């Protein structure tokens, strides 16, 4: 099947190219935004009362004397090589960001797993049962959860745990090796996952409900096949691209939400790094972190696009 293999290669290439283009556009937009704003990478130094000479040398070291277009080019070229630039203190951003990023991906990964494991079956069940009262109530509950910021969910959960167990589980502390007790991640992961589950379940419900109306699925239903078999074999494949897209979208929500939740529980991930960056007014660090997070989300969307584009034609019938 040479043609199938080449089709896959072409589709994958197209998705990869579009993803790289998106990342380049984001990096450019972030660069232009920081250019347009009054502060630059050395604002923090100025605020801390560094001498003009020290500021000047920092500016020279960070290459801030060059023209904007030269720096933009340098930035994009660096990103292409995997170079994330330097923080205001002159340390490579990739060194500073590596460990917190791994921790954030761990936390967000646990939450994402919960989202997939819970939201997909839940959404499918909601679609299958149609307009039952329980489904309506679940719908209302999910509207409520979607609307509430994660840190509020976290605090309410912490309060629940506190009053039920009489202890305060809301702080995750890393030991001196930087190792994290995974059990302590339960609460922040739950706070991240709950709104994302509510959101994803609704989208999955919509996608599966549409698929259930396809002629061949309806035929299988009328033939009296078992619900699980109809859902898995017939309804899920056509609904898969929409489900993948909604999971990718929940990655974007998790990326934003984890920043806040991490800060709330003192988890030393990207959120804490960003908070340090905010306090030190390190625009270089913050803008690099934004580009990295956007690239990760773009990667998730690329995977969803691949699910859509590489789906075998047969199941589409």
């Amino acid at each position, binding site marked *: 099947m040479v043609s199938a293999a080449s089709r896959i290669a072409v589709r994958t290439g197209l998705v990869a190219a579009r993803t790289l283009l998106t990342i380049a556009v984001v990096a450019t937009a972030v660069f232009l*935004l920081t250019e347009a704003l009054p502060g630059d990478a050395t604002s923090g130094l100025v605020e801390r009362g560094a001498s003009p000479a020290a500021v000047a040398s920092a500016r020279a070291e960070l290459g801030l004397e060059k023209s904007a277009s030269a720096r933009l080019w340098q930035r994009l070229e660096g990103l292409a090589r995997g170079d994330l630039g330097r923080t205001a203190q002159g340390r490579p951003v990739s060194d500073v960001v590596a460990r917190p990023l791994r921790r954030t991906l761990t936390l967000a990964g646990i939450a994402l797993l919960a989202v997939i494991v819970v939201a997909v079956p839940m959404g499918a069940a909601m679609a299958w049962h149609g307009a039952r009262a329980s489904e309506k109530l679940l719908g209302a509950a999910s509207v*409520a959860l979607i609307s*509430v*910021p994660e840190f*509020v969910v976290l605090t309410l959960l912490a309060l629940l745990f506190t009053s039920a167990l009489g202890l305060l589980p809301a702080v995750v502390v890393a030991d001196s090796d930087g190792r994290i007790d995974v059990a302590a991640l339960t609460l922040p992961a739950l706070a991240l996952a709950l709104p994302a589950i509510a959101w994803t379940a609704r989208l999955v419900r919509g996608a599966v409900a549409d698929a259930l109306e396809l002629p061949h699925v309806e035929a299988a239903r009328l033939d009296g096949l078992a619900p699980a078999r109809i859902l898995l074999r017939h309804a899920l494949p056509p609904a898969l691209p929409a489900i993948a897209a909604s999971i990718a979208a929940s990655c974007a929500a998790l990326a934003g*939400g984890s920043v806040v939740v991490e800060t709330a529980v003192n988890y030393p991930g990207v959120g804490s790094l960003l908070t340090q960056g905010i306090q030190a*007014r390190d625009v270089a660090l*913050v803008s690099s972190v934004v580009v990295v997070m956007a690239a990760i989300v773009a990667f998730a969307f690329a995977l969803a696009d691949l699910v859509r584009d590489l789906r075998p034609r047969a199941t589409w019938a």
Partner: protein
Amino acid sequence: MGLKRLRKLGALGALVVPAIALVAPLAAPHAEDEVVGAPFAAASANALLGTDELGRDVLSRFLHGGDELVLIAALAAIAGTAVGVLVGLGAAVARPWIGGALERTSEVLLVVPALLVLILVGTSSPEAPPVAVSGLLAILAVPWVARIMAAAARGALAAGYVEHAVATGESTWWIVTRELAPALRGTVLATLGLRFVEAIYLVAGAAFLGIGPQPPEADWAVMVRENVPGLLLNPWGALAPCAAIAVTAIAIGVACDRNTRRPARA
């Protein structure tokens, strides 16, 4: 039955809760930075919800803490929706290629968590006035709103009355503001509600991270962060602002869910 009543309650709450937040500071018994007792003291006659980490009255700070959040979010939602509706409907009527550009822009925005953009801008210019936050959120919302409105207009465009208006030489502005926007008011209202919920989410999240209101200013999100360490001593310090943010967001979320389910037909 119960659900219908819940939605009605939500619609009422969507108007009442933000209004309460705006006038609540007038009812505060103490100033927002006045120390009235020991830190994290339990509820008493002098401090009905107890005190916070510095011994300030939780009730007073709670009543003071919502107006700016609600105002910034409302401004962002109204501005973003208004511009987005005009752009989206205008594009649908007069410039179909803008629709493609909106799609591309939203695809890029999809990838960047808006909270991170807010953090970036807040880091770069911390002295920017709160209105600037509204402006930024409004700008970020425009492509979304415009895309939804352009899609919603497709049905209306085929309905004949728009074609008639175009044929009789009505201006795009007239068609958008007098024909399409009123016909699609259900979608416009639902979008406005969703934008407001999103703006509350983002402004509160950013404030929680230290962008926006600075101590000793009272703010619901900042109160949560300040008072979580005292959760066991005086839970009200974190619970009251949490509940306020949740109720504000849920009331509007439930109200606009009703609107999205029953869109006004053109």
